[in-house]
C-alpha cells in the first residue's frame, strides 16, 4: 500500500443484534475489509438519527453506511422498517441537494452474513474512495 494514497473515512452504524454480530462474524472468519471503516454500535438501526449522519459528514466522513437486521428480522420487530423509511427519504433529499448519492447507504446484514458484511464494506469503501474527498457536505473548520 502506498503511504500517501487517499483513503476515505467511513462511519458504519451497526445494529447490535444483526449487523454488529455480522461484523464480528466477518472478524471470526478473518474476512478482510479496509480499515477505513469504523463501526459504531447502536441497539437498533432505528436509533440512527439523520443528525448523526450529517454530523459524521461535517466532521470529515466521506461515506456513512447504516446496517440493520433484514426486514422482518428486527430484534425489536419493527425498528428497521422505520429506518428504511427515514433513510430512503433522507438519502433522496441529500441527492436532491446535490450530495453524491453513493456516499450514503443502507444495508441489511444478518448475524450470519459475515461474508456479506465484508463484501459490503469492501464495495462501499471502494465506491467512496472512487468519489474522493467529500467536498459538498464538509465543514472546513473540521478539516485541519
Amino acid at each position, binding site marked *: 500500500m502506498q503511504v500517501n494514497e487517499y483513503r476515505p473515512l467511513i462511519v458504519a452504524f451497526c445494529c447490535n443484534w444483526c449487523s454488529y454480530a455480522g461484523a464480528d462474524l466477518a472478524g471470526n472468519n478473518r474476512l478482510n475489509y479496509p480499515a477505513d471503516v469504523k463501526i459504531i454500535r447502536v441497539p437498533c438501526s432505528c436509533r440512527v438519527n439523520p443528525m448523526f449522519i*450529517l454530523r459524521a459528514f461535517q466532521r470529515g466522513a466521506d461515506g456513512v453506511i447504516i446496517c440493520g437486521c433484514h426486514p422482518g428480522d428486527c430484534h425489536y420487530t419493527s425498528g428497521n422498517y422505520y429506518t428504511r423509511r427515514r433513510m430512503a*427519504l433522507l438519502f433522496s433529499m441529500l*441527492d*436532491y*441537494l*446535490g450530495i453524491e448519492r453513493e456516499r450514503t447507504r*443502507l444495508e441489511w446484514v444478518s448475524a450470519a452474513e459475515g461474508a456479506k458484511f465484508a463484501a459490503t464494506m469492501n464495495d462501499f469503501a471502494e465506491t467512496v474512495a472512487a468519489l474522493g474527498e467529500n467536498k459538498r457536505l464538509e465543514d472546513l473548520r473540521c478539516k485541519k
Partner: protein
Amino acid sequence: MQKITRDQIVSKAVSLLQDGTVSAVLGWRQGEFCYDVTPSVFNTAEDIEANFVWNDFCGANFSKYLVSKTKNIDGKLLVFLKPCDTYSFNQLLTEHRFNRESVYVVGIPCEGMVDISKVKAVSGEGIVCAESKGAGLSVTTIYDENPKEIPYAEVLSERCLNCKSKKHVAYDELLGDEGEVIDSARFDEVEKLESMTSEERFAFWQGELSRCIRCNACRDVCPACTCEKCVFDNPNSGAESKAPTNSFEEQMFHVIRAFHVAGRCTDCGECSRVCPQNIPLHLLNRKFIKDINSFYGDYQAGAEVGMRAPLVDYDLGDLEACDVFERRDSE
C-alpha cells in the same frame, strides 16, 4: 378578488362575539400601508368594525397561533381559516398541540393571496394604493398617480398559483361555498430539479442556501414547528447553531428542518412566504411530500385528524433505500 367580503367576515365575527359563542377573535389588523396586515386578537366589536381587514394580502396562516393563543383563554377563540390553513389546523390537532374545544373555526374561501414583492417588481417602489379591480390589482405609486393594472396571474404568490386545495378540511362553520381538492402542478419545480445533474443541483442549492441569514423566520412561522424547544436552540442537541457560519451549517439547518417536518408538512407555504431572502424553501418540503407520495402512497398531512404520519408508520413491502434512485431514474 376574494369571494367573501370584509363586511361578511366582520359581521360574522361581531355576531359570534356578541352572542357569546366566542370570547375573542383572531384576525388581520390594518397596517401602515394597503398591503401590510398584522395578525391580531380582537376583543371588542368596535375594534373589529374599525380595524379588521380582509383583502388580497391576508396570507398569514393562523393555525400556529392557536397553540399559544388558546393557552389561557376563557371561552372560545374565533379563528378564520383559509382552506390551506385548515390542513395545518388538523395536523396540529393530530399532534395534540391545542384543545379543539377552545377554538371556533370559520372557514373562509380563498382565491389566492398576493405576493407584494411580485407587485413591486412590476410597479416599482412607493406603493400608496393596491386595490382589487376585476382580474387584477390596481396599483398607484408616489411616482405615478395613474393606477397601473396588474393581472393576478402575475402577482399571486407561488403557493397560490400552485394551490393544492380549496377545500376546508376542518371548520365549525363555513362562509361561502366549499371548494375542491385541486390537482396542482406543485411538483413541477421539484421534477425540474430532479432532472438536473447532481452538480447542477448542488450549485442551485448552494446559490439559494448561501443567502440564508438564519433569522429562523421559516421555522418560527411554520405550523409544523411547534417544539417546546427546537434542536437548533438546544446546546445539548449537537445541532445547535445561531449562524450560517458556512455552507455546511446552511445545509444542515435546512435538511434537518425539512426532515423534522417531513410527513407533517401540509405544504402551506408559509416558510417561503416569510423568507426575507426569498429562498424557495417549499422546494425542500415538496421534495419530501413528492417522495412520500411516490414511495408510500399519496398522503396529505392534515387531511384528517388522527392520521398516522408516514415517518411514524411503515409497510412490510416498503421500498428499499437503495431502490429510491432506481425508481426515480426510471421515471
